[in-house]
């Protein structure tokens, strides 16, 4: 392929894919918890995506494809084959019986702080579903876990988030929705 064709193809890639960079970055921050590592992850993700772009079918779900590459790169880097819960986290999740009402009138900082207190394995699906608005199936595809596992993680993750917020709200004297 000559330079002109290659440049044109790169421009198309940039126009199509770079628009999702902030969304991918937000998720990378949740995954890496370190800004520099998250930026590296994004760079690697886009490089892999560019190198595989000839295999991508235009018109299909580019955003979901990029997320899949992101997690592929990330878990490849830390040598994990798939997303696993540590046993202790599973135990914590199982003992949740009480689901408190969702507090209202919390600030964004408080909400973000509560999110960051829940285990990462629950945080990531919650962010993918409730912030980035991926479908459950897209999340399953990106994380390479079964749909049922996604739903279970989301259920627990959201419950944990509400518990963190309720504990905070109680401590801070907020009124909780009746």
């Amino acid at each position: 392929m000559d330079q002109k064709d290659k440049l044109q193809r790169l421009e198309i890639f940039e126009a199509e894919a770079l628009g999702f960079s902030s969304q991918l970055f937000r998720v990378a921050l949740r995954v890496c918890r370190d800004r520099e590592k998250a930026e590296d992850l994004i760079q690697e993700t886009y490089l892999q995506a560019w190198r595989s772009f000839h295999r991508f079918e235009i018109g299909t779900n580019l955003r979901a494809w990029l997320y899949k590459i992101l997690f592929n790169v990330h878990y490849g880097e830390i040598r994990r084959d798939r997303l696993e819960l540590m046993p202790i986290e599973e135990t914590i999740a199982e003992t949740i019986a009480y689901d408190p009402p969702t507090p209202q009138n919390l600030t964004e900082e408080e909400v973000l702080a509560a999110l960051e207190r829940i285990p990462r394995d629950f945080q990531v699906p919650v962010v993918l579903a409730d912030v980035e608005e991926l479908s459950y199936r897209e999340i399953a595809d990106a994380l390479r876990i079964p749909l049922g596992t996604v739903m279970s993680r989301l259920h627990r993750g959201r419950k944990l988030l509400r518990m963190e917020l309720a504990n905070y709200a109680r401590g801070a004297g907020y009124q909780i929705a009746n």
Partner: protein
Amino acid sequence: MECQNFKELLDSYLCGELAVETNHTMLCHAERCCSCRSEMGARRSLRSSLRRACSKEELSDRAMENLRARLRSDSGLDDGPAAPGDETGRRNWFAGLFKMRFLTPAAIVAALALTVGAAWSLSLLWGGDDDHQRLSSQQIKALELSASLVAESAGDHRTCAPYFVNATEPAEMPESAGEYDRACVRLDKIAAQGAKELQLRAAHICDFSDRKFAHLVYTRGASLVSLLVTDRDCRALKSGEVPPYSGLALGTQRFTHDHLALGAYQTSKRIVLVVSDLPVDENAALAERLASPVVEYLRNVEAETGPKERIGTGRLREGIDRVAVNDAGEIMKIDGIDGIFRDFARRIDH
């Protein structure tokens, strides 16, 4: 449905992951149970807060420039000259963003991706003298509509429109529609200009999942088509915030949801949607014809109390070199482009 069951399903409902029938059951329960209705409001608010909190993080300009350099280096393009007609690398990327959609008509990137219609191929700078602004990627992102709006619009079409498919009585928007939105009282008359091949079956205000719509139900042969007008509130935008500019420069925003095709337009205060079970491209073409007079009318209504305009300089791909941009960031073409926007700019002395 019991309250426990409602709360178990509530997050999936807010994500648009439940079947339509279950949505209906959820709504019926929420109507009867104020505790569950309150919990629905609190969780919806939490989702918006979470989205806003997380949306503040952006890839830095430095990281983006590094990324672009790395991509070029990986392609062996870092030493090459700029292609003819390029200005700066960044501007070229921006121009490419607007070029893409109508060169690949079948390409729909994702259910919530923005698309730019053929009539809106713009590489735009505005402002006077040296003070150039552009529609940044951040602004484009701020215009993304939320999944819940798409789901609610599709849901309203699916649950409400079929009731009227065989209606034979003449349909007219009632005066009481003014209690919801004064601008929608004549919606059926305004839309008639673009609805030549359609038959109006119903005109009313209806609710779906806490969202009100002005709803026109049409049939075209065997197909049902809805034209919906709703508030451009923070829940309608993916970021949870309403940007101070409308999304008109983007042309038709296209979505699919549960086998329905949607085309959407944003004015400063409202969102106009056309929903049908037609193929996506066909729905988009129909949306442009049907929604255009409505969008123009609503813009005029909003502009009556709206901000002043100023003239800037701009460069359009079609070669026109003057555009008018009002303080709301809405782009109006001047001199000679046929389309839904007319020229009515006045010069403001800065």
